[in-house]
């Protein structure tokens, strides 16, 4: 018996390894919470090293990144042009709304609710080592009041939400992540649905619409809806680039190009608390408030 084991030790070891690993794969595919918090602890332990490397990367990588981005520059340029158009129209819309808003506020004699937004600025210190999972570690944690479930934004739009937090760091799941889902709606037609992350390489998100025959067309802006579980409503997610029927033609899905450039994410803001209703955070609208 022992000679049998000795003779076949290599295949036995390999089969055992494969079995154990497959078990852990199927287990972790179902259970998420603990696995994420464990990796968050690693992120916290490594955060001084990550932060210093990130600082070095910020300083030195600026030149190199231009070379690295040569492949995507042209596409990015076109996308930026589109975004610029979107922003210009949005700015107009915003200034109109602002005016109307302030008039109404004056009528109602309410204090400026923008001041009720509580944001914490944080720096991105590391990303997920697997390129198909899109999470990142930021340098603020429960000590600064951050809790899992809080939305993370930048002036350009929605970044993601906090999924795990330690006292000094937290892990943020980007909207690009295949597991991410955000309640969203079309600004023009109010068509509602869920924006799911697809994979970072396609550089788009999937907007799955609830209604059978929704009114949606390329160029529409997509924002977080008031049904969203984690996000304040009215935050820009992106712009519809393509509308397609899903399999069997039962529902329609739209491809959404995210408003945030995830390549150059260095500083983000975590929304600690926000007033209810459709008010925008003070970082929006080019400082009009």
């Amino acid at each position, binding site marked *: 018996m022992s000679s049998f084991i000795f003779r076949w030790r290599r295949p036995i*070891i390999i089969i055992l390894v494969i079995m154990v*690993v497959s078990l852990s794969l*199927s287990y972790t595919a179902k259970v998420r919470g603990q*696995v994420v918090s464990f990796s968050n602890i690693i992120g916290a332990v490594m955060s001084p090293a990550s932060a210093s490397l*990130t600082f070095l990367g910020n300083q030195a990588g600026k030149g190199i990144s231009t070379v690295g981005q040569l492949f995507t520059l042209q596409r990015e340029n076109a996308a930026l042009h589109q975004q610029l158009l979107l922003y210009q129209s949005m700015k107009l819309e915003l200034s109109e709304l602002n005016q109307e808003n302030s008039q109404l506020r004056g009528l109602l004699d309410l204090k400026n609710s923008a001041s009720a937004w509580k944001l914490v600025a944080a720096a991105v210190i590391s990303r997920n*080592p*697997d*390129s198909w999972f899109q999470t990142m570690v930021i340098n603020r944690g429960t000590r600064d009041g951050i809790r899992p479930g809080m939305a993370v934004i930048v002036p350009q739009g929605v970044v993601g939400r906090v999924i795990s937090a330690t006292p000094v760091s937290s892990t943020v799941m980007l909207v690009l992540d*295949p597991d991410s889902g955000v309640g969203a709606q079309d600004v023009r037609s109010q068509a509602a649905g869920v924006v799911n992350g697809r*994979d970072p390489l396609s550089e788009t998100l999937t907007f799955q619409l609830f209604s059978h025959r929704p009114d949606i067309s390329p160029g529409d802006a997509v924002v977080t809806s008031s049904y969203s579980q984690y996000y304040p409503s009215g935050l820009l997610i992106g712009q519809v680039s393509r509308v397609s029927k899903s399999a069997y033609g039962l529902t329609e899905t739209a491809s959404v190009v995210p408003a945030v450039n995830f390549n150059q994410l260095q500083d983000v803001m975590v929304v600690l608390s926000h007033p209810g209703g459709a008010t925008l955070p003070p970082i929006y609208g080019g400082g009009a408030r």
Partner: protein
Amino acid sequence: MWQFRFPTWIVLDVLGLLVQTALFPHVFPVGYVPNLILPLTVIIALYETPRRGLVAGLVGGLMQDMWAGRLWGLNALTYALLGFAVAQLESRIVRDNVFVPGLLAGVSQLLVMPFQWLLLYLFGLAIPWSDFMRPLPVWLLFSMLVTPAIGGILGFRPRHEVEKKYSRVAH
């Protein structure tokens, strides 16, 4: 010799993962960030016995999995098999310090990607094949250049060469 020690591998894997998560995202666009565990596994396993190659890959992959915090075992399985395969090949090929590590790393990268796609597919993450394979040219070039570079910088050599050197010193 420190090259063959288990703690060395862990230190190298930690450094590799740090660079990969904190430094590389500034250089490579989202989704194109290359992996450093693959070059490390190839260069370590190239001078090891199959069983130790398997362990080296398993350790590196497991660390990446825990760091990523999603599917524990995805990279562990991939790199354990890779380490085993590279170490198996090792005894059958003529070795040099530049072309063989580079070529092996390139072939490994080619084989690893479909394997991981399949694993992700089996465990509920169906990424379109064309999107998944898009970073392949970048990663191929990266691993083919970086693997010999790591080997050269760290001075990795076959065991018999290292031991011969020691015996010569002793005499």
